[in-house]
């Protein structure tokens, strides 16, 4: 907000380096955030994804200024903000509980930030009207929050946080209180608002599908650390470890012996004896003959004639999901395998006990660091 010292090494809108957050002291000390390094670019839709208790809210509160980091540096638009309270940061938050002021009308709620910034009344009213239009709530400007539905309150909370035109908008699981249909609607609404305003969004969710569909980049967190950061396709296709692979989407874990390595790929021996190429994570050089864990997504194997594919399997059960069917299989060496097949008209699921051949898509198999 203020023209504080501008750093020449500005990387992004938010630069977090080596941030730690410890609650409590001595034996009761709890490391909620450990060595967080993060750089978020201007205009980016950035998502923090992770299971409950992994520190997403804490990180958001550190950025907003409700918590001070125990160590490390936090820059917003190049200016160090350590020690500044939330009212002195160009960042607004959409709270999970919305936290709308119950004694104010919708319009007054939306104008609150500008009023506190000392803007003239005409400007406040004009901006409030514009924000109401943006979230399609023009008709309800004079209502009180108690007279709004959950989805409407959500929109007001968004409009209120957007009205002061913050550089960064922080959203803490803003959609978790909404039912599925409204949730889908608000997802595209949020995306539209972000594109229209060009404001940097830092979005918190524990819903991996939401993270994948909405974000430019995702950071997967666990136990106070960022495990992987990247575009949704990178996270989905190339998870760096077992936790990420397991948390994002469904996946098969296969324990397979290494037949041979070459560069960043290895040949693994599949059940039944055939070989398949698998990508290795950076810097990993497994010993020939050692067992490694490889992952393959359920949709990256296809059914072929029993002896034509890379592996053979028998069907345990088939679960119909509308657009596709999940086949629960057992490989010839006894490891379980889930396969997702898109449904076609007239196609029947295979009977339990049927023997199938499986063909793996090239590049689908990846070795994980454990």
């Amino acid at each position, binding site marked *: 907000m203020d023209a504080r010292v501008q750093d020449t090494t500005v990387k992004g809108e938010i630069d977090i380096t080596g941030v730690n957050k410890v609650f409590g002291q001595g034996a009761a000390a709890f490391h909620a955030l450990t060595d967080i390094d993060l750089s978020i670019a201007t205009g980016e839709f950035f998502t923090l994804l992770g299971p409950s208790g992994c520190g997403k809210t804490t990180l958001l509160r550190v950025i907003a200024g409700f918590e001070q980091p125990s160590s490390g540096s936090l820059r917003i638009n190049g200016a160090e903000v350590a020690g500044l309270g939330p009212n002195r940061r160009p960042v607004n938050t959409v*709270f999970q*509980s919305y936290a709308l002021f119950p004694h104010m009308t919708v319009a007054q709620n939306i104008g609150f930030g500008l009023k506190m910034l000392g803007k003239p009344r005409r400007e406040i009213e004009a901006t409030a009207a514009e924000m109401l239009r943006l979230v399609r709530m023009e008709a309800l400007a004079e209502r009180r929050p108690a007279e709004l539905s959950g989805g409407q309150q959500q929109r007001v909370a968004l409009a209120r946080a957007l009205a002061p035109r913050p550089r960064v908008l922080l959203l803490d699981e803003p959609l978790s209180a909404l039912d599925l249909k409204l949730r889908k609607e608000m997802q595209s609404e949020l995306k539209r608002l972000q594109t229209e305003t060009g404001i940097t969004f830092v979005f918190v969710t524990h819903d991996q599908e939401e993270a994948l569909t909405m974000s430019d980049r995702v950071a997967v967190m666990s136990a106070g650390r960022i495990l992987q950061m990247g575009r949704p396709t990178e996270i989905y296709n190339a998870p760096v470890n077992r936790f990420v692979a397991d948390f994002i989407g469904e996946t098969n874990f296969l324990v397979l012996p290494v037949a041979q390595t070459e560069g960043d790929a290895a040949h693994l021996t599949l059940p039944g004896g055939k070989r398949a190429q698998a990508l290795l994570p950076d810097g990993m050089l497994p010993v020939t003959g050692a067992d490694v864990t490889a992952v393959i997504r359920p949709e990256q194997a296809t059914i072929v004639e029993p002896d034509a594919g890379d592996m053979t399997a028998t069907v345990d059960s088939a679960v119909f999901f509308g657009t596709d069917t999940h086949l629960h299989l057992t490989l010839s060496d006894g490891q379980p395998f889930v396969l997702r097949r898109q449904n076609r008209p007239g196609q029947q699921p295979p009977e339990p006990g049927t023997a199938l051949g499986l063909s793996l898509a090239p590049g689908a198999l990846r070795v994980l660091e454990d």
Partner: protein
Amino acid sequence: MAEKGYSVRRLPGFGLIAVLTFTMLYLPIVILVFFSFNAGPSQAVWDGFSLQWYEAAFQNRQVREVSIRSLWLAATAASFATVLATLAALGTTRGGRFPGQTMIYALINQPLMVPEIVTGIALLIFVAAIKVQTGYTGMGYLVAAHTAFCIPFAYLPIRARLETLDPALEAAAADLYASPVQAFFSITLPLLVPGIVAGFMLGFVISLDTVVITEFVKSAGQDTLPTYMLGQLRRTVTPEMNAIATLFLALSLIIVTAFFLITRTRGR
């Protein structure tokens, strides 16, 4: 309710006890009010309807004087008590946890726990000492004593209200560039108003009603309505007392009703 369901109503004598209890509670008051309209001077023989005792009460200069003193004292003490109770409630709910917090609650609520007569005697001795030292004999002592006595009654509704306020509201205000002072005056205080009004009213009624504290602290010529009435009752009792008591009752009822209405609509 199911045929054999448990109901306290089925206990033998339950209805009778209920009726007796309510009779004990309200019959004496009904009789008091009834005889305030008696045309004759008796508390036992009905001589027909009249408002003469109300007239007499209004004509009585002393009654007017002590009534005004009572109202003034109650308003002043309740105001001070409300301000202090608001600060105490903020301190105990918004200051974060601190060592001895439970102790503080107990100390704030002293008047609810220490017998009034003990407080009264303690104040008598204390105030007497100050009077001797300073020579000051004004209303200050009564105001101070009533204020202290009213604080817990004002504190309870204010604290109850504060505890229902989502702390995220204050966080949201800070996030939207409000300084702590601005956040307090634009968010916390307006949302606290129903609790503050309720606290004031409760304090007002308590101050209006208290006899013991006043009796021990007051200097000559500082009678309040209750201590004046008590003094009069030691002499002859005319229905004029009934009329004054009835008016007093009406005032208390109005305030208590308002209190309930305010606390009931506090959701807004």
